[in-house]
């Protein structure tokens, strides 16, 4: 990493200052030529739609009858923020789920990475591949396979629990993974663990970047396994944890696929899985309230922005950047 940075940093210094401006202009023109696909895409697919989305949020709008669109000011916003209780409810569900699933999945990814980075494990590359493999399975298939495993009557999860512990787990009186309101978020988190591969590989790369001298020095000072984990490993890979956390939070806000595949947005059980994105989809593409949908989308954007800013604000207290990287 640092090698690459050096190559890049040295470049501009080597060059003689102030070459002919005509050359610079020519270079910039070529550069813009190469950037043009992105710039067109940015305007057409990000910037203008974002602005338009805000305008839509001020309208009462159904795409089937676009001519009947009327400007209603901030009525949609008022509805989303004040009168429509489902907005806050679905958002709270989303947050509650994120608070359960994010720490578990990130923790599991980090745990796997630490195990697979340990010099004590025999056959590391094989495990790495096998732990990664389920991440390649399309999420729809993952959800359906797990839905079978967690079936209260025929699923193996309950069969195993019953056979190993002797507790009655199978059947309607047993453990109802998908129907019990106390369990359903944990069940959804469990599917998610099959997608842990990317985070695991990124953590693993982070761990491999930690200089071994640190561990050797700590060992000489008599630090035990836990101390080394919390005083060396975690601080040194905190930038990677931070990156994963930011992406994870933004991703959780948009959680959609699993509940949609499993219950088509009914929120089973008891509305527990009617998350924000599901509500957004229903308003926009089932009821075609696109003005209101645009409001919900903007609201999500604002929340995502606030959460990102908060995360970046906390970063200085716990994310550790080595001095050499700070330049």
């Amino acid at each position, binding site marked *: *990493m640092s090698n*690459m940075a050096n190559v890049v940093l040295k*470049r501009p210094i080597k060059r003689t200052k102030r070459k002919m401006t005509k050359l610079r202009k020519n270079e*910039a023109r070529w*550069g*813009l030529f*190469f*950037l043009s*696909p*992105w710039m*067109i895409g*940015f305007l*057409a*697919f*990000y910037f*203008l*739609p*974002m602005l338009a*989305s805000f305008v839509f949020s001020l309208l009462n709008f159904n*795409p089937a009858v676009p001519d009947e669109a009327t400007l209603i000011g901030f009525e949609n916003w008022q509805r989303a923020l004040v009168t429509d209780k489902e907005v806050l409810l679905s958002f709270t569900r989303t947050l509650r789920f994120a608070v359960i699933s994010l720490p578990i999945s990130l923790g599991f990814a980090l745990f*796997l990475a630490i195990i697979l980075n340990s010099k*004590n*494990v*025999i*056959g590391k590359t094989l*495990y790495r*591949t*096998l732990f990664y493999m*389920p991440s*390649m*399975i*399309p*999420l*729809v*298939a993952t959800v*359906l*396979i797990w839905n*079978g495993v967690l079936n209260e009557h*025929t699923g*193996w999860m309950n069969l195993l629990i019953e056979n190993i512990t002797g507790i009655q787990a199978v059947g309607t009186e047993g453990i109802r993974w998908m129907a019990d309101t106390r369990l359903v978020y944990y069940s959804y988190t469990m599917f998610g*663990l*099959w997608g842990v591969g*990317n985070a695991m*590989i*990124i953590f693993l*790369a982070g761990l491999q970047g930690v200089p071994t001298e640190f561990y050797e020095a700590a060992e000489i000072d008599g630090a*035990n*396994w836990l101390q080394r984990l919390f005083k060396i490993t975690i601080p040194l890979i905190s930038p990677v944890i931070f*990156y994963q956390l*930011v992406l994870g939070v933004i991703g959780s806000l*948009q959680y959609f*696929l699993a509940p*949609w595949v499993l219950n088509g947005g009914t929120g089973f059980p008891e509305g527990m899985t009617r998350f924000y*994105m599901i509500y957004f989809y229903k308003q*926009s593409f089932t009821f075609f309230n*696109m003005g209101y949908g645009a409001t*919900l*989308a903007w609201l999500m*954007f604002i929340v995502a922005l606030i959460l*990102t800013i908060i995360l970046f604000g906390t970063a200085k207290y716990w994310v550790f950047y080595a001095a050499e990287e700070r330049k």
Partner: protein
Amino acid sequence: MNEALSKSRKPISRKVRNRITAILVTSLTIVILVIFLMPMVYGIMTALKTDAQFSTKGAPWYPASREQYEYEGKTYDIYEVPIDGELQGLALVIKGRTLSQFVDSDHPEDGLIRWEGAWRTLERKWTFDPQWGNFVKAWNTINFTRLLGNTLKYAGITTVGAVVSASLVAYGFARFRIPKKKVLFMLMLSTVILPGAITLIPTYFVYLQLGWVGTWLPLIVPAFFSWGTNVFLMRQFIMSIPRELDEAAMMDGANPIRIFISIILPQAVPALTAVALFHFFWAWNDFFGPLIYLAGNPEKFPITVGLTAFNTLYSQYVNMIQASSLITAVIPVLIFFFAQRFFMQGVVITGVEK
């Protein structure tokens, strides 16, 4: 683990201690791995079961069918009957509340055997009997050939678009001095974490006006205008290619397009492969886009949406659902096994260098 060992540190040499830790950690890993992959075994076993096996109590966990025996022109189920303290597989011919009559399939000439007891308490006899035909049935019911064709087309075309556009833009960001380049670059990175919903409704409306809703166009066209993550990965890679080569070519009078094609691209093959693989898997997985733009056009569905529709209709056919899920999973998993090296490198570049 280490603490427990350290108490008995003195008598055990370091080497032995390391070996014990290695065995413990490795077995822990294997246990976790087995639990982690258990659902896959479940999926395979379930996909191979007959429909009848799900509704029968006491059916085994592996794919099996009831053992039956034909006696005097009729078929009877075979049960495990305790006779003389031994379990014998006998076909149940006459059912009775307290007394039933069986026939021994090995010695039918002996006639009916009387057994006292409630036949309902007996267990059936099962034989391992995988229904490989379930996969064929699932393939045909869900019309996999069409779904697969759609997904392949979608993934293939957009992968070309993603790779071409990302490499062009990345070259621009990596090699040219452009005013406000830093701002542009940050802007591009910020689109990576922008929630997709925010742009969805106006773009949907525009596509609707263009008559694109219900076609593949809204899903394909944007791929040709480059994507933040892919550009980022390519740019990191291009920046590591020594500039001397470009400069030499420039001296020889090559223009930037020439340099891009004959110098940058050939050297950037690992990054191109990684971007292509990423995008391919992404497109293979894509659900939300096709769900919205192809709603009501089942003949255009990709695998993911098709599988969901199938599940909604046939969720009671557990074996069919598992078989079709496995068919969906197998191609990406196979590609992954062949290309995992490039793929994992790509993950690392996009994930860590930020």
